[in-house]
């Protein structure tokens, strides 16, 4: 064995030298690259002129909860059921649909959409857990979470109990709260449905949450 190792040592050292030499000669320097003029041939696409960064970054359709524009110019309509006892609130740039429910409107449920993967599943699950004062979990634990249908596909179902700190400028913390949510993260975009409120109130509204999330659909006119 020792003899074999000593026999292989010499070619190994020479091989390492060869590799190092090849490596140093093959590293490309792109820092001097310049703009290259190319012919915009007939296959080059035409453009849509966005009137703001909001539209260019695909937040425009999120503000208009009811309507978005599809690729072919056809109007797309977000449809959903409003559960009994829930009151719809005005939409914002981030939130497509917002509901309030329960005594003093303590319960809240909203649908938000983000372009791209929206930060990724793991980061968003742990962001929500952080808002409830819970410890972050690992990717394996996130992958083991249950799923529920959302927009015709399976979304990750998150439940966290704890002290809710909503953030967004609010310094208040609400004790004995529950967060229930669905996260759908894909290349085409990310969707989040998040329900928060006192634990008992959220527990009593799980069926309404399921009714709302399972009714969500995009219809093309």
């Amino acid at each position: 064995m020792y003899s074999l190792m000593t026999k292989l040592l010499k070619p190994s050292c020479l091989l390492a030298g060869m590799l190092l030499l090849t490596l140093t000669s093959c590293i490309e320097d792109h820092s001097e690259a310049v703009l290259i003029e190319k012919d915009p041939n007939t296959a080059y696409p035409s453009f849509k002129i966005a009137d703001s960064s909001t539209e260019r970054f695909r937040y425009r359709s999120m503000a208009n909860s009811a309507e978005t524009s599809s690729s072919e110019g056809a109007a797309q309509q977000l449809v959903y059921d409003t559960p009994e006892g829930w009151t719809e609130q005005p939409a914002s740039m981030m939130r497509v649909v917002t509901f309030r429910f329960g005594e003093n409107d303590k319960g809240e449920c909203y649908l938000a959409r983000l372009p791209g993967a929206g930060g990724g599943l793991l980061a968003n699950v742990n962001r929500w857990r952080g808002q409830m004062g819970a410890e972050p979990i690992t990717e394996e634990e996130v992958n083991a979470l249950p799923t529920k249908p959302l927009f015709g596909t399976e979304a990750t179902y998150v439940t966290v109990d704890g002290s809710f700190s909503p953030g967004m400028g609010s310094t208040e913390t609400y004790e004995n709260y529950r967060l229930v949510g669905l996260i759908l993260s894909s290349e085409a975009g990310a969707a989040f449905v998040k329900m928060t409120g006192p634990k008992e109130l959220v527990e009593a509204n799980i069926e309404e949450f399921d009714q709302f999330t399972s009714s969500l659909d995009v219809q093309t006119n």
Partner: protein
Amino acid sequence: MATQKKDTPDNFLLLVYRFLSSYKLATVVLILMTLVTLFGTLGQVNHGLHAAKEKYFYSFLFTDKIGSIPIVLPGGLPLMFILFFNMVLGAIVKVRKRLKGLGLLISHIGMLLLLAGGFVTYAFATDGYMAMYPGMKTNRVESYRKWQLEIIKLTEENKAEKLFVYPSEALQSIKSNEQRSIPGNGLPFDIVINGYSSNAMPVPVSAPIAAGVQAKQIDGFKLAPQDKSKEAEQNLPGCYLEIQPTGDEKPIETILWAGSYKFDPGEKPMPFIFEVEGQKYGALLAKKSWTVPFEVQLDEFIFEQHPGMSMARNYESRVTRFEEGKSDTSLEIKMNEPMRYEGYTFFQESFGPAGSQPGDRMYSQFAVANNPADQWPLIALCITGAGLLVHFFMMLVGFVVKSFQSKSKPKTA
């Protein structure tokens, strides 16, 4: 009296030749290739397929860990180069030419062809995709993962008049903390890219997630770098772009994000529009693209689901191919039945939009591959197999003849 060893190499070239053609080198390289294959296979779990290929097989060196012990190993690419030269010198040039070794010689030629095919694929093959709704026609293929910066000189009708490209390799080499100035190449402005991230998301400053983003705010947005996705196709790069007019005009700053390009073949890209010296320009992070020498039109996309399930049972496309005014109609592209034409292979890859149901307007996506060494592995395996058959047959004949001779030899007292 001092004696000189007979086999001492008398010149450097002979030493190199002996080293490159040695069994010892082959042994070391094969052991290392086994390790690289092992790390590369396990690495797919954490890095995803594309990133694992880049790290373990297309690199010159890579670092990894066994437990907590860091290790450095050569990548698959240089090892295969060395193995190729080792086999050429050791098994073809150096080996004693005799009829008995014919089978092994043929087998080694087959293995060399396999390695050469791997290199041709690495160096010259292109792969991209073509997605279209029924009725659309194009010859444009887009890369899955490579993004480039495009500066477009626009006409009054907002059509591309001239196109200036900052190549994907150069763009992707920009580090997140690097600021890179790029001269305008005849344009009346230079550009500066900084804060490039290979996966990023613009977030409105009003969003909770923006509070933790330490980045410049432009037009109500910050660019938030994201962890790289395991699926490299899902990464959407972004950067800050500064346009610096060479005249007296003020610099213009913006955020560019790949999500402004398009997620759907029916969408139109949304470039950042700006004016310098009264001329309108667009700036866009766009997928690297190229054209094939013929056009393909999607006539019909057929999509069937398993009853009661959202899983696709079958999806196929009927296309027409146009070339120099001539058209071939009613061509079918199905799963496992690609269209091969002029060195290009069109595979039925996927469909969209996500969540579509039978009856919805759907687009079809083809993987378009152009690989000069497409069939080389098959040929190489046939040659290697034939070589081994020849070798085993000759060994068998030799054994039978030897047995026969030993039996027929007269016994001596």
